[in-house]
């Protein structure tokens, strides 16, 4: 049986409709109208032990809502979630011991006390045996460099340090599943890399299942063996990452700055003979959009260099949000896609 099993899961929120102006406010007082917003609409998937699953989608797609139901914060409106054979919201106390949760935007640690004291509180809260606690602290300190700030109060930590401390706190009790909501949001490249390494290591050594939401394509590429893409509360894609990119994310943009401005127009005309999708001139630079399946960057560049000399060029890969946006527009035409 799969570790996480989500079946026909639906969550509806009830929100009062507020009417405008003073008379509206008075009307609301006596007769309040509600609107129902479906955040998650009839989704199903299974996750097995040891997987690292990227749960992706634009803002407001229903990612966090799904995670919150898997974690046990929210009660589903319809359908079911079982995690490790438990219904999260009904068995919060036992469920909590099986999972670790990190919300990138909000710390789970105590604001006013040093990191070590916070971690010690976790030990007592989760009843972690001494030797397990010591072993974990040692291991995590090594990979996450906790030494440099372990005696600092959480409120004085930098975002990167706080995130590392949060990760450590979430894993002290050896959870089977780790839920990460935007773990790398707002972090610098070095810390991002460190955190990815850590997640990978934990997954490899402990077979910890990881479910993470992110907007960072690098996170997805470096970590996830599988992605689930959701939009408007429905699953748009469930499968491996390379398939997703081949299918939807194969557009790249090359931007070229030629040495002589007058080359721009002639260069553009020359490129028309190649199999590119679009060319644009902007700020004295030439932007070429092409599909990686049709032609590769080297072919385009060699063509250009044979025609003129250039000062600089950049290649911009497709962003995940762009991939998803394209997927969504395509899917809304073709209907739901099943892989």
């Amino acid at each position, binding site marked *: 049986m799969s570790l996480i099993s989500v079946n026909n899961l639906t969550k509806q*929120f*009830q929100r009062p409709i507020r009417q405008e102006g003073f008379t509206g406010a008075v009307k609301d007082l006596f007769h309040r109208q509600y609107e129902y917003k479906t955040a998650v609409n009839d989704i199903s998937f299974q996750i097995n032990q040891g997987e690292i699953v990227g749960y992706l989608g634009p803002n*407001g797609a229903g990612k*966090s*809502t799904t995670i*919150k139901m898997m*974690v*046990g*914060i*929210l*009660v589903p409106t319809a359908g079911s979630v079982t995690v490790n054979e438990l219904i999260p*919201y009904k068995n*919060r*106390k*036992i469920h*909590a*011991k099986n*999972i670790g*949760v990190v*919300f990138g*935007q*909000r710390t*789970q640690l*105590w604001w*006013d*006390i040093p990191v070590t*004291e916070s971690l*010690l*509180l976790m030990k*007592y*809260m*989760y*009843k972690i045996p001494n030797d397990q606690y010591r072993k974990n602290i040692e291991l995590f300190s090594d990979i996450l460099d906790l030494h440099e700030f372990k005696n600092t109060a959480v409120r004085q930590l930098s975002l990167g340090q706080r995130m590392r401390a949060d990760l450590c706190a979430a894993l002290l009790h050896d959870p089977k599943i780790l839920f990460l*909501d935007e773990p790398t949001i707002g972090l610098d490249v070095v810390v991002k890399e460190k955190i990815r390494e850590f997640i990978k290591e934990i997954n490899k050594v402990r077979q910890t299942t990881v479910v993470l939401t992110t907007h960072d394509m690098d996170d997805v590429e470096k970590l996830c063996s599988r992605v689930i893409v959701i939009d408007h509360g429905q699953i748009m894609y469930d499968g491996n990452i390379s398939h997703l990119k081949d299918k939807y994310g194969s557009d790249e943009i090359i931007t070229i700055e030629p040495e002589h401005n007058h080359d721009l127009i002639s260069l553009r005309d020359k490129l028309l003979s190649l199999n590119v999708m679009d060319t644009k001139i902007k700020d004295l630079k030439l932007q070429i959009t092409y599909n990686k399946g049709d032609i590769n960057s080297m072919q385009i560049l060699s063509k250009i260099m044979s025609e003129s000399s250039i000062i600089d060029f950049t290649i911009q890969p497709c962003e995940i949000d762009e991939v998803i946006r394209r997927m969504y527009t395509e899917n809304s035409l073709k209907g739901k896609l099943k892989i």
Partner: protein
Amino acid sequence: MHYIQLYSRFILIYLKTRLEYRFAFFMDILIQIITFFVMFLGLWIMLNHFQTIRGWTFYEVLFLYNLNILSHGISGMFFMSPMRQLEAMVQNGEFDGILTRPINPLPLLIFKQFQHAYIGHVLLGIGSLILCINKLNLELSGLNIVMLILVLIGATLIQSAIMIMTGCVSFWFVKATSLSNTIIYDLRRFLNYPLSIYNKFIQFLLTFVIPYGFINFYPSLLFLNKEGEVLFTASFQYGTLIVGLLLYMLSITIWSVAVNKYQSTGS
């Protein structure tokens, strides 16, 4: 056992962080004591002038008053801050974190937010209770002491239950603190004087709807031997603990319904 161990850890950390600002810590307690001392003074001046309120002497009214602030102080230490902050926590989604821990949400909230200012309440309550017992020559038999303790437990449960229930309102309505202020503070003021001086409506309200009367008025009849003051039925004198337990159970039930109603926030 686990909870006791855990709570002592939390309290230790709470005191450690609060005692970093030693002056503020003791001022909080002192200000509470001064505020209530001023109220005592007002009571004393009034009763000095009128001698009695419907046959209740100063120390009898003080005894009444005491049961109220002592039980309010005890439950306030634990329930007041969490329930006050619940509204904000529900609004900004901080309550999420509470639901991902292997501890029940209510105890966890209590563990996280002790309120030291109410120590002032409790100290003052104990002090003036001893004073009243002395001045009124109340017999300190074993039975009386047990009764007093049971009444205090019951009264504390009533106060706590009402705090929990007003806190729960945050799960349904945003901006509910004005309601809890009305119930906790404004209605509770009626308890400063014997319930028998008010009209039938207030008596009914504070006995059957919001049973504040059981915190101090009814049990006081028992300790002060005020047979002439009986409202409704004489058996209410013994009702504090039962009312407390029932009301507390009700509040816990409402609490668990409310938690499942929690909608979290967008992110």
